[in-house]
């Protein structure tokens, strides 16, 4: 068990006053909060340390005990009365913060864990099992048409002697037609086992739509960049485009420009509120790498076209 230097975790002086502690905590909490910095494991670890340090230093009693014994604290040193005292001040904010209830061994040996833990197995009450989260990558076609998938994951399960242990579990899951990018489904009762007769937790599966060279997906809306030739943009054209919703004949109006967007209503992912398919035109110039192409570009010079007219220069 490692000693924790709560002052250096917050980066403050041992004589810092309550206002300084509070201010520093808030700054660090905003900086490292896992909801603010998603997918940042290092930040999350730092945040938990910060929460733990603040939990001790904001409370004059705990801070006093920490200042007095903290530096050479050893497990089992806790006095009976002291622990009792801290357990009474339990944090009643059930399921509150991110760092809440997940303290270091050092903290628990000094202050105990009673009262702080929302989800601990030590209470004699009925408790719902833990929710389990998983994610699956699916190609865009599966979001349009649905499919089924097999996933394997480790999850807490109840062994015959009543212990909770991590076990491999395989589930066959239906990918619902119309699932959005990042959309979740909930499988009732497929999470961790409940305690003392409580219901099992649920399993949440998030579906991420795989990166596709042509399509990208935001929620239920699908975006497609369509390369077109300059003459197709200038003169108009009918272009066949294959989309996950099927083949579409697109009418490119005369005088179209690069970056122009066309909306195909309801042709995005068929969610309850179906998304749209947005086609962004991108004019691609043919390279002038042979005589014929060069001649054609030279011919176009005869147009006396000045793209910088608005700049007032030629």
């Amino acid at each position, binding site marked *: 068990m490692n000693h924790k230097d709560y002052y250096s975790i917050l980066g403050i002086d041992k004589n810092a006053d309550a206002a300084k502690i509070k201010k520093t905590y*808030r700054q660090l*909490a*905003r900086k490292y*909060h896992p*909801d*603010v910095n998603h997918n940042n494991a290092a930040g999350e670890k730092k*945040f938990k340390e910060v*929460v733990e340090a603040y939990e001790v230093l904001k409370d004059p009693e705990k801070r006093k005990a920490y200042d007095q014994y903290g530096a050479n604290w050893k497990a089992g040193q806790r006095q009976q009365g002291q622990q009792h005292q801290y357990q009474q001040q339990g944090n009643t*904010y*059930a*399921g*509150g*913060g*991110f*760092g*809440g209830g997940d303290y270091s061994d050092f903290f628990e040996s000094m202050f105990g864990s009673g009262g702080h833990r*929302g989800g601990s197995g030590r209470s004699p009450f009925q408790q719902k099992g833990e929710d389990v989260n998983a994610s699956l990558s699916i190609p865009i076609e599966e979001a349009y048409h649905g499919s*089924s998938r097999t996933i394997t994951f480790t999850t807490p399960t109840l062994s015959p002697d009543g212990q909770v242990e991590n076990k491999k579990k395989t*589930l*066959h*899951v*239906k990918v*619902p037609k*119309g*699932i*959005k990018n990042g*959309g*979740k*489904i*909930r*499988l*009732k009762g*497929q999470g961790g086992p409940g305690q003392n007769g409580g219901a099992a937790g649920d*399993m*949440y*599966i998030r579906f991420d739509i795989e990166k596709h060279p042509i399509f*990208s997906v*935001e929620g239920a809306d699908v*975006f497609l960049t369509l390369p077109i030739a300059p003459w197709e943009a200038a003169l108009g054209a009918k272009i066949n485009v294959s989309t996950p919703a099927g083949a579409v004949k697109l009418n490119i109006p005369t005088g179209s420009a690069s970056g122009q967007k066309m909306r195909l209503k309801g042709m995005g992912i068929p*969610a*309850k509120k179906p998304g749209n398919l947005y086609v962004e035109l991108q004019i691609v110039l043919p390279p002038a790498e042979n005589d014929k192409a060069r001649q054609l570009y030279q011919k176009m010079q005869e147009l006396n076209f000045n793209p910088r007219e608005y700049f007032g220069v030629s």
Partner: protein
Amino acid sequence: MGVKYNIIHVHQGRMVDEEEDLTLMELSRLSRVSPTGLIEMVEEGILEPSGERVREWRFSFSMVERVRRVTRFQHDLEVNLAGAALALHLLEKIVKLEAMLQRRAP
């Protein structure tokens, strides 16, 4: 000779942001926030249930995570409900913008 079939049970989940089937009490139980607390979140515009009267309110499952997030902000960042709502709003905007940026990346 008999044919052996493997019977596979395919689990069919409920889409959490599509189906609106949680009542106020159920959302309260799942998010561990009191009904009064949830009503405040509706008044703040953080939650938008379907249905007119409180008794008819229905929430989608994705609201569970939203409520938990708001309570985490209130608790961890020591902000009030309006502050938590603002943080939530801005974060959602960032997620959207990041997705847009990613889309534009070559």
